[in-house]
């Protein structure tokens, strides 16, 4: 708001001049609503005992696992999600709308329901999991891979939506030109489309990563809770809350700091996507 007097770089509209009060007041209320709980977390944080809380092995174990699994889930989402987004944006086939609805379902599905669904599909007794178990001896629940699966399930729609939107905004004529010049459809996708939608892919990846980092419901339902193997930060926050609220606040602060650092660090690239 105080930017009125300071000259900013050209292209940035000056704030003070044109914000009508009926917009400004709800906007500020919205800001307070979103930021106040975080401020409360900072105020009530046990700053004095914080060093002890944070140097415990359990915290680092959970944080490390969270970072590894969220990154792995993002990779899974990228490998599977970008082609899926391309299919939704470019290919024409009956039932595409229904497909899009199904793909984005985990966005609105309660994560616990997602976890139960994953158990019924990929669990030891699930429709596919039973076969995985008998043929390969692979069971996903209660493993770190299970955490990645749960997180990818919940986070991938964020990537798909973001990439699909960017693809729709990008002009398909460049791809068509490439194919008329002799490139195969896949080469055109790789050399023309992908570089064009890179900001959208990056934005989607960041969103998916952040969502995976905060995943709780599907993880605890599908992968269980075992320190060092499946206990991610959100799980350890929840369990700490049952017996030691101070520890829970300390853990929350760590998660908050990591999330803010990543979202703020990648903000510029993210903005470029829209």
């Amino acid at each position, binding site marked *: 708001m105080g930017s009125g007097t300071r000259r900013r770089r050209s292209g940035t509209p000056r704030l003070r001049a044109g914000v009508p009060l009926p917009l400004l007041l709800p906007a500020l209320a919205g800001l307070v609503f979103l930021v106040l709980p975080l401020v409360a977390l900072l105020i009530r944080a046990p700053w004095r005992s914080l060093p002890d809380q944070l140097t415990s092995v359990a915290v680092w174990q959970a944080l490390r696992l969270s970072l590894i699994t969220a990154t792995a889930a993002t990779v899974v989402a990228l490998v599977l999600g970008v082609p899926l987004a391309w299919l939704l944006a470019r290919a024409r086939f009956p039932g595409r709308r229904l497909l899009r609805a199904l793909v984005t379902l985990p966005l609105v599905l309660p994560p616990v329901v997602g976890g139960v669904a994953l*158990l019924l599909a990929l669990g030891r007794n699930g429709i596919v999991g039973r076969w995985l178990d008998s043929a390969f001896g692979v069971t996903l629940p*209660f493993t770190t891979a299970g955490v990645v699966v749960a997180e990818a399930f919940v986070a991938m729609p964020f990537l798909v939506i973001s990439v699909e939107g960017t693809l729709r905004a990008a002009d398909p004529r460049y791809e068509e030109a490439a194919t008329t010049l002799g490139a195969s459809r896949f080469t055109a996708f790789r050399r023309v489309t992908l570089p064009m939608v890179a900001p959208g892919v990056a934005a989607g990846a960041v969103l998916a990563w952040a969502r995976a980092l905060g995943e709780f419901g599907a993880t605890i339902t599908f992968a269980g809770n075992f320190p060092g193997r*499946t*206990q991610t930060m959100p799980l350890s926050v929840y*369990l700490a809350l*049952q017996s030691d609220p101070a520890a829970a606040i300390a853990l929350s602060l760590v998660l908050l700091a990591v999330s803010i650092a990543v979202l703020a660090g990648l903000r510029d690239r993210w903005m470029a996507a829209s």
Partner: protein
Amino acid sequence: MTTRSVSGSGSRPRPRPRWTLRVVGGCALAALTLTACSSGDSDDSGDSGDSSKKSASGSSSEELSGTVTVFAAASLKESFTALGKTFEKEHPGTKVSFNFGGSDALAASITSGAPADVFAAASPKTMKTVTDAKDAKGTPATFVRNQLEIATLPGNPKKIKTLKDLTRSGLKVALCAKEVPCGSAAQKALTAAKLKLTPVSYEQDVKGALTKVQLKEVDASVVYKTDVKAAGGKVAGVEFPESKQAINDYPIAPLKNAENAEGATAFIDLVKSAQGQKVLGQAGFLKP
């Protein structure tokens, strides 16, 4: 709204009473869920049910009325629901409304001012949260106890007979997390048996541990006797002697900010009565 009622009251009198009806109905509905429209500290609200409540305080407990709000541990769901129906039948005009959940969460909401008349917890520790905050009236009474049991797949295909069998390699076991009552009880039993058990998961609550068995994702879990009973044929129960070392007491207490203090006392009396103990015993609870 006012301009419309002035011009329309002569020709169309209907909308207005209907509107009032809806407001009254809505308030009644809200009263059922939130105990009452008024806040806890005001003595006289305009509620019609309030005057009859006052008259009941003078006479015997047979003239109870209004809603009794009971916050109770999730493990009490089946038996308390049945007792609530009995209570409503014995005291016509009353209603018992329940809030079942994890004892920790319930205790936290009571200490932060949730409107409740009775609290029944699954452990003395969670009740202590409430008594420490001076939200309970009098000393809590232990009304039942709960013992652990091993829950395993129907027919017990892995032939689990003792607590030690759970430590066999290749067996997948889920335990409750140490932070929640069933987890600390399980840990106590394991310590008493001098056993070291590495589960595949420390579940967030007892129902989570039971569900993993029902879905056949684990071979066994350590839960309460009452949970095995409530699951019916979906799991098989295996008793083990070490569970005697880790019996959980369930305390119950009326709350200080109760809207319906007489109702609270009457409900607790029912829970402690022979009839109440019979219902709880059928659910698998032990006598205190």
